[in-house]
Protein backbone atom coordinates (compact mmCIF):
# COMPACT_ATOMS: atom_id res chain seq x y z
CA UNK A 1 0.00 0.00 0.00
CA UNK A 2 2.95 2.28 0.57
CA UNK A 3 3.71 1.98 -3.12
CA UNK A 4 0.30 3.22 -4.24
CA UNK A 5 0.45 6.03 -1.74
CA UNK A 6 3.84 7.12 -3.05
CA UNK A 7 2.63 7.11 -6.63
CA UNK A 8 -0.36 9.25 -5.75
CA UNK A 9 1.89 11.64 -3.89
CA UNK A 10 4.30 12.02 -6.74
CA UNK A 11 1.45 12.43 -9.22
CA UNK A 12 -0.12 15.18 -7.16
CA UNK A 13 3.16 17.02 -6.75
CA UNK A 14 3.91 16.82 -10.45
CA UNK A 15 0.43 18.11 -11.20
CA UNK A 16 0.89 20.91 -8.70
CA UNK A 17 4.09 21.92 -10.48
CA UNK A 18 2.97 21.45 -14.04
CA UNK A 19 -0.33 23.27 -13.88
CA UNK A 20 0.99 26.69 -12.90
CA UNK A 21 3.92 26.43 -15.29
CA UNK A 22 1.52 25.75 -18.13
CA UNK A 23 -0.80 28.49 -16.92
CA UNK A 24 2.06 30.94 -16.80
CA UNK A 25 3.07 30.12 -20.35
CA UNK A 26 -0.54 30.55 -21.40
CA UNK A 27 -0.61 33.98 -19.82
CA UNK A 28 -3.06 33.05 -17.03
CA UNK A 29 -1.38 34.28 -13.86
CA UNK A 30 -4.53 33.75 -11.79
CA UNK A 31 -4.07 30.00 -11.85
CA UNK A 32 -0.48 30.41 -10.76
CA UNK A 33 -1.73 32.31 -7.75
CA UNK A 34 -4.26 29.57 -7.09
CA UNK A 35 -1.53 26.96 -7.20
CA UNK A 36 0.59 29.05 -4.85
CA UNK A 37 -2.30 29.17 -2.43
CA UNK A 38 -2.56 25.38 -2.63
CA UNK A 39 1.15 24.92 -2.00
CA UNK A 40 1.12 27.23 1.01
CA UNK A 41 -1.95 25.62 2.57
CA UNK A 42 -0.42 22.20 1.96
CA UNK A 43 2.66 23.38 3.82
CA UNK A 44 0.57 24.65 6.72
CA UNK A 45 -1.35 21.39 6.84
CA UNK A 46 1.88 19.37 6.76
CA UNK A 47 2.92 21.23 9.87
CA UNK A 48 -0.35 20.29 11.54
CA UNK A 49 0.03 16.75 10.25
CA UNK A 50 3.10 16.35 12.44
CA UNK A 51 1.16 17.10 15.60
CA UNK A 52 -2.19 15.68 14.53
CA UNK A 53 -1.36 12.91 12.11
CA UNK A 54 1.74 11.51 13.72
CA UNK A 55 1.17 12.57 17.31
CA UNK A 56 -2.58 12.29 17.54
CA UNK A 57 -2.74 15.76 19.07
CA UNK A 58 -6.03 17.29 18.00
CA UNK A 59 -5.00 20.92 17.99
CA UNK A 60 -7.89 23.21 17.21
CA UNK A 61 -5.64 26.21 17.60
CA UNK A 62 -3.05 25.93 14.85
CA UNK A 63 -4.35 29.14 13.34
CA UNK A 64 -2.42 30.85 16.13
CA UNK A 65 0.84 29.71 14.55
CA UNK A 66 -0.32 30.39 11.01
CA UNK A 67 -1.24 33.92 12.03
CA UNK A 68 1.89 34.53 14.07
CA UNK A 69 3.96 33.63 11.02
CA UNK A 70 1.92 36.02 8.93
CA UNK A 71 2.27 38.81 11.44
CA UNK A 72 6.01 38.19 11.66
CA UNK A 73 6.23 38.77 7.94
CA UNK A 74 3.93 41.77 8.06
CA UNK A 75 5.58 43.46 11.00
CA UNK A 76 9.09 43.01 9.67
CA UNK A 77 8.07 44.31 6.27
CA UNK A 78 6.17 47.26 7.73
CA UNK A 79 9.15 48.33 9.76
CA UNK A 80 11.45 47.94 6.79
CA UNK A 81 9.21 50.20 4.76
CA UNK A 82 8.89 52.83 7.44
CA UNK A 83 12.57 52.62 8.39
CA UNK A 84 11.63 52.59 12.08
CA UNK A 85 13.21 49.93 14.24
CA UNK A 86 10.88 47.47 15.93
CA UNK A 87 12.31 47.48 19.43
CA UNK A 88 15.75 47.69 20.98
CA UNK A 89 17.00 49.10 17.68
CA UNK A 90 16.24 45.91 15.74
CA UNK A 91 15.38 46.95 12.21
CA UNK A 92 12.69 45.54 9.99
CA UNK A 93 13.53 43.60 6.89
CA UNK A 94 12.05 42.63 3.61
CA UNK A 95 14.35 39.68 3.07
CA UNK A 96 12.34 36.49 2.87
CA UNK A 97 15.06 34.31 4.34
CA UNK A 98 15.20 36.42 7.48
CA UNK A 99 11.45 36.65 7.63
CA UNK A 100 11.07 32.89 7.34
CA UNK A 101 13.55 32.29 10.14
CA UNK A 102 11.72 34.81 12.30
CA UNK A 103 8.36 33.24 11.55
CA UNK A 104 9.70 29.79 12.37
CA UNK A 105 11.16 31.05 15.63
CA UNK A 106 7.99 32.92 16.56
CA UNK A 107 5.77 29.95 15.75
CA UNK A 108 8.04 27.60 17.62
CA UNK A 109 8.15 29.79 20.72
CA UNK A 110 4.40 30.30 20.78
CA UNK A 111 3.93 26.55 20.36
CA UNK A 112 6.33 25.98 23.24
CA UNK A 113 4.31 28.27 25.49
CA UNK A 114 0.92 26.91 24.47
CA UNK A 115 2.12 23.34 24.39
CA UNK A 116 3.76 23.47 27.79
CA UNK A 117 0.35 24.19 29.31
CA UNK A 118 -1.99 22.37 26.96
CA UNK A 119 -0.05 19.12 26.74
CA UNK A 120 -0.46 18.57 30.44
CA UNK A 121 -4.06 17.82 29.57
CA UNK A 122 -5.48 15.30 27.17
CA UNK A 123 -8.50 14.43 25.13
CA UNK A 124 -11.25 17.02 24.91
CA UNK A 125 -9.48 19.29 27.36
CA UNK A 126 -6.62 19.61 24.92
CA UNK A 127 -8.93 20.40 22.03
CA UNK A 128 -10.76 23.08 23.97
CA UNK A 129 -7.64 24.62 25.44
CA UNK A 130 -5.82 24.92 22.13
CA UNK A 131 -8.95 26.51 20.70
CA UNK A 132 -9.09 28.91 23.61
CA UNK A 133 -5.44 29.94 23.38
CA UNK A 134 -5.73 30.59 19.66
CA UNK A 135 -8.77 32.72 20.37
CA UNK A 136 -6.74 34.63 22.91
CA UNK A 137 -4.07 35.42 20.32
CA UNK A 138 -6.80 36.45 17.89
CA UNK A 139 -8.44 38.85 20.31
CA UNK A 140 -5.08 40.28 21.21
CA UNK A 141 -4.20 40.87 17.58
CA UNK A 142 -7.41 42.66 16.75
CA UNK A 143 -7.21 44.87 19.80
CA UNK A 144 -3.51 45.79 19.52
CA UNK A 145 -3.73 48.88 17.37
CA UNK A 146 -0.15 49.27 16.20
CA UNK A 147 -0.37 46.61 13.51
CA UNK A 148 -3.73 47.20 11.99
CA UNK A 149 -5.99 45.71 14.63
CA UNK A 150 -9.20 44.49 13.08
CA UNK A 151 -8.31 45.87 9.70
CA UNK A 152 -5.21 43.80 9.25
CA UNK A 153 -1.76 44.76 8.08
CA UNK A 154 -0.91 45.33 4.46
CA UNK A 155 2.43 44.35 2.95
CA UNK A 156 2.81 46.91 0.22
CA UNK A 157 5.49 45.20 -1.79
CA UNK A 158 6.16 41.51 -1.77
CA UNK A 159 9.28 40.60 0.17
CA UNK A 160 12.58 39.85 -1.46
CA UNK A 161 14.51 36.71 -2.19
CA UNK A 162 18.06 36.96 -3.55
CA UNK A 163 18.24 36.41 -7.27
CA UNK A 164 14.51 36.04 -7.82
CA UNK A 165 11.93 38.54 -8.99
CA UNK A 166 9.38 37.70 -6.36
CA UNK A 167 6.84 40.17 -7.67
CA UNK A 168 6.07 37.85 -10.56
CA UNK A 169 3.66 35.01 -9.84
CA UNK A 170 5.63 32.05 -11.19
CA UNK A 171 8.93 32.68 -9.40
CA UNK A 172 7.07 33.21 -6.13
CA UNK A 173 5.14 29.99 -6.72
CA UNK A 174 8.38 28.13 -7.31
CA UNK A 175 9.76 29.41 -4.01
CA UNK A 176 6.67 28.20 -2.17
CA UNK A 177 6.72 24.89 -4.01
CA UNK A 178 10.37 24.34 -3.16
CA UNK A 179 9.63 24.98 0.51
CA UNK A 180 6.72 22.55 0.33
CA UNK A 181 8.96 19.86 -1.14
CA UNK A 182 11.54 20.51 1.57
CA UNK A 183 8.93 20.27 4.32
CA UNK A 184 7.42 17.12 2.87
CA UNK A 185 10.87 15.57 2.77
CA UNK A 186 11.40 16.60 6.37
CA UNK A 187 8.04 15.09 7.34
CA UNK A 188 8.96 11.83 5.67
CA UNK A 189 12.31 11.67 7.42
CA UNK A 190 10.77 12.67 10.73
CA UNK A 191 8.16 9.96 10.44
CA UNK A 192 10.79 7.29 9.85
CA UNK A 193 13.19 8.49 12.52
CA UNK A 194 13.57 7.54 16.18
CA UNK A 195 11.62 10.63 17.12
CA UNK A 196 8.88 9.69 14.69
CA UNK A 197 8.67 6.20 16.14
CA UNK A 198 8.35 7.60 19.65
CA UNK A 199 5.79 10.15 18.50
CA UNK A 200 3.61 7.58 16.76
CA UNK A 201 3.90 5.31 19.75
CA UNK A 202 2.73 8.17 21.97
CA UNK A 203 -0.36 8.44 19.82
CA UNK A 204 -1.16 4.75 19.99
CA UNK A 205 -0.26 3.89 23.56
CA UNK A 206 1.41 6.42 25.80
CA UNK A 207 1.48 4.01 28.74
CA UNK A 208 3.64 1.66 26.71
CA UNK A 209 5.93 4.50 25.64
CA UNK A 210 6.54 5.56 29.22
CA UNK A 211 7.01 1.94 30.24
CA UNK A 212 9.94 1.60 27.85
CA UNK A 213 11.51 4.71 29.25
CA UNK A 214 10.58 7.50 26.84
CA UNK A 215 8.71 10.42 28.43
CA UNK A 216 5.59 11.11 26.32
CA UNK A 217 5.22 14.74 27.42
CA UNK A 218 8.63 15.74 26.12
CA UNK A 219 8.14 13.98 22.82
CA UNK A 220 4.77 15.62 22.30
CA UNK A 221 6.04 19.06 23.24
CA UNK A 222 8.89 18.89 20.77
CA UNK A 223 6.51 17.64 18.09
CA UNK A 224 4.11 20.47 18.87
CA UNK A 225 6.91 23.02 18.61
CA UNK A 226 8.11 21.69 15.25
CA UNK A 227 4.52 21.58 14.07
CA UNK A 228 3.87 25.18 15.10
CA UNK A 229 7.10 26.38 13.52
CA UNK A 230 6.28 24.79 10.17
CA UNK A 231 2.75 26.16 10.11
CA UNK A 232 4.11 29.60 10.98
CA UNK A 233 6.43 29.43 7.98
CA UNK A 234 3.36 28.81 5.83
CA UNK A 235 1.72 31.82 7.45
CA UNK A 236 4.60 34.06 6.44
CA UNK A 237 4.30 32.86 2.85
CA UNK A 238 0.54 33.34 2.92
CA UNK A 239 0.90 36.93 4.06
CA UNK A 240 3.38 37.52 1.26
CA UNK A 241 1.09 35.92 -1.28
CA UNK A 242 -1.85 38.11 -0.39
CA UNK A 243 0.33 41.10 0.42
CA UNK A 244 -1.86 41.34 3.49
CA UNK A 245 -1.93 39.96 7.01
CA UNK A 246 -5.50 39.39 7.97
CA UNK A 247 -6.51 38.69 11.58
CA UNK A 248 -8.72 35.97 10.13
CA UNK A 249 -5.50 33.98 9.79
CA UNK A 250 -5.81 33.61 13.57
CA UNK A 251 -9.49 32.71 13.66
CA UNK A 252 -11.08 29.48 14.80
CA UNK A 253 -12.40 29.07 11.27
CA UNK A 254 -8.80 28.94 10.06
CA UNK A 255 -7.94 26.33 12.69
CA UNK A 256 -10.88 24.29 11.47
CA UNK A 257 -9.82 24.74 7.86
CA UNK A 258 -6.35 23.42 8.66
CA UNK A 259 -7.79 20.32 10.30
CA UNK A 260 -10.11 19.85 7.34
CA UNK A 261 -7.14 19.99 4.97
CA UNK A 262 -5.40 17.25 6.88
CA UNK A 263 -8.48 15.07 7.21
CA UNK A 264 -9.66 15.45 3.63
CA UNK A 265 -6.36 14.16 2.44
CA UNK A 266 -5.87 11.52 5.10
CA UNK A 267 -4.48 11.92 8.60
CA UNK A 268 -0.84 11.05 8.98
CA UNK A 269 -0.27 10.41 5.29
CA UNK A 270 2.61 12.19 3.62
CA UNK A 271 0.60 13.27 0.58
CA UNK A 272 -2.52 13.87 2.64
CA UNK A 273 -2.10 17.62 3.12
CA UNK A 274 -1.29 18.09 -0.55
CA UNK A 275 -4.39 16.17 -1.63
CA UNK A 276 -6.47 17.98 0.94
CA UNK A 277 -5.23 21.41 -0.10
CA UNK A 278 -5.82 20.70 -3.77
CA UNK A 279 -9.35 19.45 -3.20
CA UNK A 280 -10.20 22.24 -0.77
CA UNK A 281 -8.92 25.13 -2.87
CA UNK A 282 -10.45 23.75 -6.05
CA UNK A 283 -13.76 23.20 -4.27
CA UNK A 284 -13.58 26.74 -2.96
CA UNK A 285 -12.88 28.06 -6.43
CA UNK A 286 -15.31 26.02 -8.51
CA UNK A 287 -18.14 25.56 -6.03
CA UNK A 288 -17.61 29.09 -4.83
CA UNK A 289 -18.01 30.25 -8.38
CA UNK A 290 -21.39 28.58 -8.57
CA UNK A 291 -22.81 29.64 -5.27
CA UNK A 292 -21.88 31.85 -2.41
CA UNK A 293 -23.16 29.14 -0.12
CA UNK A 294 -20.46 26.69 -1.15
CA UNK A 295 -19.44 26.09 2.45
CA UNK A 296 -22.83 24.50 3.02
CA UNK A 297 -21.89 21.81 0.54
CA UNK A 298 -18.38 21.62 1.95
CA UNK A 299 -20.00 20.86 5.30
CA UNK A 300 -22.01 18.06 3.75
CA UNK A 301 -18.95 16.65 2.00
CA UNK A 302 -17.05 16.74 5.27
CA UNK A 303 -19.85 14.98 7.08
CA UNK A 304 -19.74 12.35 4.40
CA UNK A 305 -16.01 11.93 4.71
CA UNK A 306 -16.13 11.64 8.49
CA UNK A 307 -19.05 9.28 8.62
CA UNK A 308 -18.20 7.10 5.64
CA UNK A 309 -14.66 7.60 4.27
CA UNK A 310 -12.45 7.33 7.29
CA UNK A 311 -9.04 7.34 5.71
CA UNK A 312 -9.58 10.55 3.80
CA UNK A 313 -9.29 10.78 0.07
CA UNK A 314 -5.80 9.33 -0.13
CA UNK A 315 -7.06 6.47 2.00
CA UNK A 316 -9.91 5.85 -0.40
CA UNK A 317 -7.53 5.46 -3.26
CA UNK A 318 -4.48 3.95 -1.64
CA UNK A 319 -6.12 1.66 0.89
CA UNK A 320 -5.33 1.13 4.55
CA UNK A 321 -2.02 2.34 5.80
CA UNK A 322 0.50 -0.28 6.87
CA UNK A 323 3.14 0.69 9.31
CA UNK A 324 5.38 -2.37 9.28
Amino acid at each position, binding site marked *: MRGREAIIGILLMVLLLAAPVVASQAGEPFYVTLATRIAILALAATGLNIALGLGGLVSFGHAAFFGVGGYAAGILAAHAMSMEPIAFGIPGTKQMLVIWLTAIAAGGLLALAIGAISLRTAGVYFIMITLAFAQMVYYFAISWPAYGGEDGLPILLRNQFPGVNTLRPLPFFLICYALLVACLAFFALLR*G*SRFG*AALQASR*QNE*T*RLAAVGIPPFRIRLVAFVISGAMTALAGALFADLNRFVSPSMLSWQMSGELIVLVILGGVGRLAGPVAGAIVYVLLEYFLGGMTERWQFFLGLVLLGVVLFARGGLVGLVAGRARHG
Partner: protein
Amino acid sequence: MAEPVLAVAGLVKSFGALKATDHVDLDLKAGEIHALIGPNGAGKSTLINQIAGVLRPDAGSIRFAGEEITHLGVAERARRGLGRTFQVSSLTPEFSALRNVMLAVQAVSGSSFRFIRPVTGDRRLTGPALAALERVGLADRARVPAAELSHGERRQLEIAIALALGSKAFLLDEPMAGMGPEGSKRLTGFLDGLRTEAPILLVEHDMNAVFALADRITVLVYGKVIASGTVEEIRADATVRKAYLGEEA
Protein backbone atom coordinates in the same frame (compact mmCIF):
# COMPACT_ATOMS: atom_id res chain seq x y z
CA MET B 1 24.79 -8.99 52.88
CA ALA B 2 24.30 -7.38 49.48
CA GLU B 3 21.61 -4.74 49.22
CA PRO B 4 18.51 -6.09 47.52
CA VAL B 5 18.00 -4.96 43.94
CA LEU B 6 14.55 -3.64 44.79
CA ALA B 7 13.48 -2.60 48.29
CA VAL B 8 10.02 -1.38 49.20
CA ALA B 9 9.62 -0.04 52.73
CA GLY B 10 6.52 1.06 54.60
CA LEU B 11 4.47 1.71 51.49
CA VAL B 12 1.02 3.17 52.09
CA LYS B 13 -1.64 4.05 49.53
CA SER B 14 -5.24 4.93 50.22
CA PHE B 15 -8.09 5.70 47.87
CA GLY B 16 -10.41 7.66 50.06
CA ALA B 17 -11.31 5.35 52.92
CA LEU B 18 -9.91 2.28 51.20
CA LYS B 19 -6.39 1.31 52.24
CA ALA B 20 -5.12 -0.38 49.14
CA THR B 21 -1.55 -0.66 50.40
CA ASP B 22 -1.10 -0.90 54.14
CA HIS B 23 2.51 -0.51 55.30
CA VAL B 24 3.99 -3.00 52.87
CA ASP B 25 7.61 -4.06 53.07
CA LEU B 26 9.00 -6.11 50.24
CA ASP B 27 12.34 -6.79 48.70
CA LEU B 28 13.81 -8.48 45.67
CA LYS B 29 17.28 -10.02 45.87
CA ALA B 30 19.63 -10.74 43.02
CA GLY B 31 19.08 -14.05 41.26
CA GLU B 32 15.69 -14.76 42.78
CA ILE B 33 12.11 -15.02 41.68
CA HIS B 34 9.88 -13.47 44.30
CA ALA B 35 6.21 -14.21 43.79
CA LEU B 36 3.47 -11.91 45.00
CA ILE B 37 0.14 -13.65 45.48
CA GLY B 38 -3.15 -12.87 47.08
CA PRO B 39 -6.88 -13.06 46.48
CA ASN B 40 -8.59 -10.69 44.07
CA GLY B 41 -8.78 -7.18 45.40
CA ALA B 42 -5.71 -7.67 47.58
CA GLY B 43 -4.00 -4.68 46.06
CA LYS B 44 -1.35 -6.46 44.01
CA SER B 45 -1.83 -4.30 40.93
CA THR B 46 -1.84 -1.15 43.05
CA LEU B 47 1.44 -2.24 44.57
CA ILE B 48 3.00 -3.00 41.19
CA ASN B 49 1.78 0.33 39.86
CA GLN B 50 3.46 2.13 42.73
CA ILE B 51 6.72 0.30 42.18
CA ALA B 52 6.57 1.03 38.46
CA GLY B 53 5.80 4.69 39.08
CA VAL B 54 2.26 4.86 37.73
CA LEU B 55 0.89 5.69 41.18
CA ARG B 56 2.43 7.84 43.88
CA PRO B 57 2.42 6.26 47.34
CA ASP B 58 1.09 8.31 50.23
CA ALA B 59 4.02 7.23 52.38
CA GLY B 60 7.00 4.90 52.27
CA SER B 61 10.01 4.52 50.05
CA ILE B 62 11.16 2.50 47.08
CA ARG B 63 14.81 1.86 46.39
CA PHE B 64 16.08 0.34 43.19
CA ALA B 65 19.66 -0.54 42.28
CA GLY B 66 20.91 1.44 45.21
CA GLU B 67 18.91 4.55 44.35
CA GLU B 68 15.85 6.17 45.87
CA ILE B 69 13.25 6.16 43.10
CA THR B 70 10.10 7.07 45.02
CA HIS B 71 9.86 10.43 43.32
CA LEU B 72 10.76 9.38 39.81
CA GLY B 73 8.27 8.98 36.99
CA VAL B 74 7.52 5.87 34.98
CA ALA B 75 9.89 6.66 32.15
CA GLU B 76 12.78 7.48 34.46
CA ARG B 77 12.39 4.21 36.33
CA ALA B 78 12.20 2.26 33.08
CA ARG B 79 15.38 3.92 31.89
CA ARG B 80 17.13 2.88 35.10
CA GLY B 81 16.36 -0.74 34.34
CA LEU B 82 12.98 -1.45 35.89
CA GLY B 83 11.26 -3.54 33.23
CA ARG B 84 7.56 -4.08 33.57
CA THR B 85 4.91 -6.13 31.79
CA PHE B 86 1.23 -5.37 32.04
CA GLN B 87 -1.66 -7.45 33.30
CA VAL B 88 -3.54 -6.61 30.12
CA SER B 89 -1.07 -6.50 27.26
CA SER B 90 -0.20 -2.93 26.47
CA LEU B 91 1.53 -2.68 23.12
CA THR B 92 1.79 -0.26 20.24
CA PRO B 93 -0.86 -1.93 18.08
CA GLU B 94 0.00 -0.57 14.63
CA PHE B 95 3.68 -1.35 14.97
CA SER B 96 5.02 -4.78 14.16
CA ALA B 97 6.41 -6.93 16.94
CA LEU B 98 9.86 -5.94 15.77
CA ARG B 99 9.14 -2.22 15.88
CA ASN B 100 7.63 -2.60 19.32
CA VAL B 101 10.87 -4.05 20.60
CA MET B 102 12.97 -1.59 18.61
CA LEU B 103 11.24 1.18 20.55
CA ALA B 104 12.61 -0.28 23.76
CA VAL B 105 16.08 -0.64 22.27
CA GLN B 106 15.90 2.96 21.12
CA ALA B 107 15.00 4.09 24.62
CA VAL B 108 18.11 2.60 26.21
CA SER B 109 20.65 3.21 23.46
CA GLY B 110 21.00 6.84 22.54
CA SER B 111 18.46 9.59 22.38
CA SER B 112 14.95 9.55 20.95
CA PHE B 113 15.44 13.08 19.73
CA ARG B 114 16.91 12.07 16.41
CA PHE B 115 14.83 13.42 13.60
CA ILE B 116 16.37 12.33 10.36
CA ARG B 117 17.99 8.91 10.34
CA PRO B 118 15.51 6.15 9.54
CA VAL B 119 14.99 3.39 12.08
CA THR B 120 14.02 0.63 9.70
CA GLY B 121 17.49 -0.17 8.47
CA ASP B 122 19.30 0.68 11.66
CA ARG B 123 21.22 -2.44 12.76
CA ARG B 124 21.83 -1.00 16.17
CA LEU B 125 18.09 -1.18 16.73
CA THR B 126 17.03 -4.19 14.68
CA GLY B 127 19.88 -6.39 15.93
CA PRO B 128 19.11 -6.36 19.64
CA ALA B 129 15.37 -6.31 18.90
CA LEU B 130 15.52 -9.48 16.82
CA ALA B 131 17.68 -11.09 19.45
CA ALA B 132 15.08 -10.38 22.13
CA LEU B 133 12.32 -11.72 19.89
CA GLU B 134 14.31 -14.88 19.27
CA ARG B 135 14.76 -15.46 22.97
CA VAL B 136 11.00 -15.48 23.55
CA GLY B 137 10.35 -17.46 20.39
CA LEU B 138 8.69 -14.74 18.34
CA ALA B 139 11.36 -14.18 15.70
CA ASP B 140 9.22 -15.61 12.88
CA ARG B 141 6.38 -13.20 13.76
CA ALA B 142 8.62 -10.14 13.78
CA ARG B 143 6.85 -8.32 10.95
CA VAL B 144 3.31 -8.93 12.18
CA PRO B 145 1.49 -5.90 13.59
CA ALA B 146 1.02 -6.26 17.32
CA ALA B 147 -2.73 -5.94 16.94
CA GLU B 148 -2.76 -9.12 14.87
CA LEU B 149 -0.77 -11.25 17.28
CA SER B 150 -2.50 -13.91 19.33
CA HIS B 151 -3.05 -13.35 23.02
CA GLY B 152 -0.17 -15.63 23.98
CA GLU B 153 2.14 -14.02 21.45
CA ARG B 154 1.35 -10.62 22.90
CA ARG B 155 2.37 -11.81 26.37
CA GLN B 156 5.61 -13.07 24.84
CA LEU B 157 6.14 -9.73 23.11
CA GLU B 158 5.73 -7.90 26.40
CA ILE B 159 8.53 -10.01 27.83
CA ALA B 160 10.71 -9.45 24.79
CA ILE B 161 10.31 -5.70 25.28
CA ALA B 162 11.31 -5.99 28.94
CA LEU B 163 14.35 -8.03 27.86
CA ALA B 164 15.37 -5.48 25.27
CA LEU B 165 15.33 -2.82 27.95
CA GLY B 166 18.26 -4.59 29.54
CA SER B 167 16.28 -4.65 32.73
CA LYS B 168 18.02 -4.98 36.05
CA ALA B 169 14.77 -6.26 37.53
CA PHE B 170 11.52 -7.50 36.07
CA LEU B 171 8.04 -6.67 37.32
CA LEU B 172 5.81 -9.24 35.68
CA ASP B 173 2.09 -8.71 36.19
CA GLU B 174 0.29 -12.04 35.58
CA PRO B 175 2.33 -13.08 32.53
CA MET B 176 0.53 -16.44 32.42
CA ALA B 177 -2.92 -14.84 32.22
CA GLY B 178 -4.96 -16.35 29.44
CA MET B 179 -2.23 -18.72 28.31
CA GLY B 180 -3.13 -22.34 27.70
CA PRO B 181 -1.22 -25.15 29.45
CA GLU B 182 1.37 -25.41 26.63
CA GLY B 183 2.15 -21.73 26.69
CA SER B 184 2.27 -21.61 30.46
CA LYS B 185 4.72 -24.48 30.58
CA ARG B 186 7.01 -22.83 28.06
CA LEU B 187 6.85 -19.50 29.79
CA THR B 188 7.57 -21.11 33.15
CA GLY B 189 10.67 -22.73 31.71
CA PHE B 190 11.71 -19.45 30.17
CA LEU B 191 11.30 -17.47 33.39
CA ASP B 192 13.25 -20.12 35.25
CA GLY B 193 16.27 -19.38 33.14
CA LEU B 194 15.68 -15.65 33.21
CA ARG B 195 16.24 -15.23 36.93
CA THR B 196 19.99 -15.42 36.56
CA GLU B 197 19.96 -12.36 34.32
CA ALA B 198 17.82 -10.22 36.55
CA PRO B 199 15.57 -10.93 39.52
CA ILE B 200 11.85 -11.14 38.93
CA LEU B 201 8.95 -9.86 41.03
CA LEU B 202 6.16 -12.06 39.78
CA VAL B 203 2.49 -11.37 40.37
CA GLU B 204 0.57 -14.50 39.53
CA HIS B 205 -2.63 -16.43 40.10
CA ASP B 206 -1.33 -19.57 38.40
CA MET B 207 -0.24 -21.52 41.48
CA ASN B 208 1.53 -24.24 39.52
CA ALA B 209 3.85 -21.66 38.05
CA VAL B 210 4.28 -19.94 41.40
CA PHE B 211 5.28 -23.07 43.25
CA ALA B 212 7.53 -24.19 40.40
CA LEU B 213 9.38 -20.90 40.07
CA ALA B 214 9.35 -18.96 43.30
CA ASP B 215 12.29 -18.73 45.65
CA ARG B 216 10.18 -16.65 47.98
CA ILE B 217 6.48 -15.89 48.18
CA THR B 218 4.78 -12.89 49.72
CA VAL B 219 1.06 -13.05 50.38
CA LEU B 220 -0.97 -9.85 50.19
CA VAL B 221 -4.48 -9.62 51.59
CA TYR B 222 -6.49 -6.36 51.78
CA GLY B 223 -3.31 -4.40 51.20
CA LYS B 224 -1.35 -6.01 54.04
CA VAL B 225 1.45 -8.54 53.89
CA ILE B 226 0.19 -11.48 55.92
CA ALA B 227 3.02 -13.88 55.22
CA SER B 228 6.35 -13.99 53.49
CA GLY B 229 8.77 -16.88 53.12
CA THR B 230 9.81 -19.90 51.09
CA VAL B 231 7.38 -22.06 49.18
CA GLU B 232 7.26 -24.67 51.97
CA GLU B 233 6.70 -22.08 54.65
CA ILE B 234 3.85 -20.48 52.78
CA ARG B 235 2.25 -23.82 51.90
CA ALA B 236 2.23 -24.70 55.58
CA ASP B 237 1.05 -21.33 56.82
CA ALA B 238 -2.40 -21.48 58.42
CA THR B 239 -3.28 -17.82 57.88
CA VAL B 240 -2.51 -18.17 54.19
CA ARG B 241 -4.78 -21.19 53.86
CA LYS B 242 -7.52 -19.28 55.62
CA ALA B 243 -7.10 -16.27 53.39
CA TYR B 244 -7.46 -18.35 50.28
CA LEU B 245 -10.34 -20.44 51.57
CA GLY B 246 -11.12 -22.85 48.85
CA GLU B 247 -8.60 -21.59 46.30
CA GLU B 248 -5.77 -23.89 45.28
CA ALA B 249 -3.14 -24.09 47.99
